[in-house]
């Protein structure tokens, strides 16, 4: 079971270290669950800016003595993977309650340094080419997708505009102003065909949730969401010359099979949305429409919390901000809120099944890690 969804409100820049943000996330989990430090006996940590420390250093920093520990440095795939690891640990009895936390700080110059040393392949074969960072990599994927599948800027814009409407109902979102299609289209170019509102804003923040047994959650009187199915896959389709699909396309039948539901039973979806083209790729690969039908699918739905096909109901990273590794947690934490009835005015009415997708690590020319989880309301 998943419980106690917490968000440490994001800021654009922070003078604090990643440890501060992760400490805030852990403390929020304790407050939300009324647990003491010692009762949480498992921990997973995801962070880019925690270096030179890893999860184990954080245990001493925060005075924790977990009997189960994992460091999950998988970027946007971290939350799904952390959930999978934690659920197995709880199932096997290696831990009773696992705290899954992800977060990063963002100093004024830290994003550039993260990019320059993101991976050996990036340092050798991407960063020297204009140092555009992920903007340039996703510009290629977006340009290629537009050419092959006939997507228009308006299609991506529709997702961005809808997500902004959702974000206006999420107090922790960094973006507080409405976004219109006209503003979206008129924004300055960043890495053509990407313009300003296609790109996530790096920021500081943290997210967290607990994984524990149903019995334990009930004993603690914690509202919880049920884990129905998960998949993960890394470096899928390595011989595709340019990325148009990722691991979901390999594993989605397994995902829906585990959950015993069809895509049409899903009430809301939280995609990994550092750039809108990746949301379209996920919707296709996860079976909500066929490959290449993303643009037509977008034209058919509204994607708002109260409309058809609610997507990224807290605004997604595009409207909340990308707090490093917390970016992968944003959708997971929001899905728990939706399924435990804590989403306030963003609540998707009667939400029983939610799908959370993760996508991480542009090591060279594509995102390597993909994962997804289907969560359900306790009575679903």
């Amino acid at each position, binding site marked *: 079971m998943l419980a106690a969804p917490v968000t440490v409100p994001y800021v654009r820049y922070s003078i604090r270290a990643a440890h501060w943000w992760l400490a805030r996330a852990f403390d929020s989990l304790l407050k939300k669950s009324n647990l003491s430090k010692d009762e949480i006996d498992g921990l997973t940590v995801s962070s880019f800016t925690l270096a030179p420390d890893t999860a184990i250093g954080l245990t001493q920093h925060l005075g924790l003595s977990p009997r189960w520990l994992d460091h999950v440095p998988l970027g946007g795939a971290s939350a799904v993977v952390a959930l999978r690891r934690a659920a197995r640990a709880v199932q096997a009895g290696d831990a009773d309650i696992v705290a899954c936390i992800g977060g990063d700080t963002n100093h004024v110059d830290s994003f550039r340094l993260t990019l320059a040393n993101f991976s050996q392949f990036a340092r050798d*074969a991407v*960063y020297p080419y204009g140092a*555009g960072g992920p903007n*340039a990599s996703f510009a*290629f994927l977006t*340009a290629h997708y537009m050419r092959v599948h006939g997507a228009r800027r308006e299609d991506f814009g529709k997702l961005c505009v809808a997500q902004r409407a959702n974000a206006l109902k999420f107090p922790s979102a960094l973006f507080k102003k409405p976004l219109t299609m006209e503003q979206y289209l008129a924004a300055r170019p960043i890495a053509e065909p990407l313009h300003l509102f296609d790109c996530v804003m790096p920021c500081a923040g943290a997210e967290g949730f607990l994984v524990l047994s149903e019995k334990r959650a009930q004993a603690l009187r914690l509202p919880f969401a049920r884990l129905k199915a998960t998949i993960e896959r890394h470096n899928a389709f390595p011989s595709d010359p340019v990325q148009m699909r990722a691991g979901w396309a390999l594993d989605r039948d397994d995902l829906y099979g585990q959950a015993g539901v069809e895509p049409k039973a899903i009430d809301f979806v939280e995609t990994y949305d550092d750039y809108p083209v990746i949301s379209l790729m996920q919707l296709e690969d996860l079976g909500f429409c066929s490959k290449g039908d993303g643009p037509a699918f977008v034209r058919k739905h509204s994607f708002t919390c109260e409309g058809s096909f609610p997507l990224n109901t807290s605004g997604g990273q595009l409207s909340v901000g990308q707090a490093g590794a917390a970016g992968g947690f944003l959708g997971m934490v929001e899905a728990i809120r939706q399924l435990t009835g804590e989403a306030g005015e963003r609540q998707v009415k009667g939400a029983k099944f939610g799908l959370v997708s993760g996508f991480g690590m542009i090591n060279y*020319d594509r995102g390597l890690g993909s994962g997804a989880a289907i969560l359900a309301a306790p009575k679903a």
Partner: protein
Amino acid sequence: MQRPKRKNPVLRTRLPTLPPAARSRVALGLTAAAALGRFELQQCRDCGTVQYPPREACQKCLSVVLDWKAQPTEGELLAQTVLHHSNDLFFRERLPWRLGLVKLACGPTVVSHLHEEIKNPPMKVRIRAMLDRAGQAVIAALPDKENCDMADDRQLREFTCDPKHRKVLVTDGKTALGQALIKELVSAKTEIVWVGYAEPWKKFAGFDELEKIPQVTLMPLDVTDSKNVRELAAEIAGKVDIVVNNAEVHRSFGIGNRQGVETARAEMDVNYFGLLRLAQEFGPAMRSRGADGSSSAVAWVNLLSIYALANFPPHGTFSASKAAAHSLAQCLRAEMRPAGVRVVNVFPGPIDDEWNQLLPPPKVAPAALAEAIVGALREGIEDVYPGDVAQEWLARWRDNPKALERELSA
């Protein structure tokens, strides 16, 4: 490209910055090939798979025997982008910047800089590895045709050292090579060629022809005279974009065939100390102008010799002086790199001149050598081995330096 306007001296001179220079050791294989103007990628010796980005192990069969091998340059542009934002100072000052994603015929997909004629994927392209301003290899996609112009390409001009619209100092105009170089530079649209000549009280063969070329200005220059070098630098170092140091003394024989050290000292004084004097006086000014507009200071060319790699005993003291100069040129290269000024080392085989009278052909004709030097500037090549002899010696030296030493002493 239009000839750049005269600079307003009141405005700031743009300071040199470099594109991101960090590379893993294994990735420097691309740089080693690009320095010679070659395009090589790692290829697995066991299964033949071509690798990119550079790896420590084959992505297919996990073999760790990956050889750098010449690869076909055909590719297809799959996607392009125009950066309007960069996290790096060098690119930030040069935006917008166009990039492409290219699927190579030999397998991998590469990120590349784009020539301005490359537009609208899908499109056939030809790729090459080039040294960028940081001296590290990058891949560029060019139109699929011969003789592609990089001199006028806004992006690729940043990576080459094309003499077009630039001001060049040739340190010795008296030799056949010097005069061939001047002609070659003038036809490459060099704006000014300052030509040094020692012993200005003597008129040398070809002087009158040089004087008639409008781009040429003859300047007394004796590289063995520190004061003379300093005075010339005071006059023109702040304007020179390319130095071609072709001044050399070449006498035959090794150790046993000559008494005393005077001849060897004369060789060292020109071939080694001459370079040192020039570098001390011209280097700092050029370093400060490494990003001074589209016709910034870009290159320093040293005329070395293939004998710099391995001593050729019949020309033993000359070989030693060129080996010393080679070593110093590596130091100069390290000191000029932060400013983006490329040090181009030229290692010709025997030149077809009077000092190689006793050597059998093939020998490099001065005009061919001049063409190779200007070609290297245009193409952005760092180490040039012109002529069949140089190419053959290089291959032998790379294969087994000890074997070459024995062969040369036979």
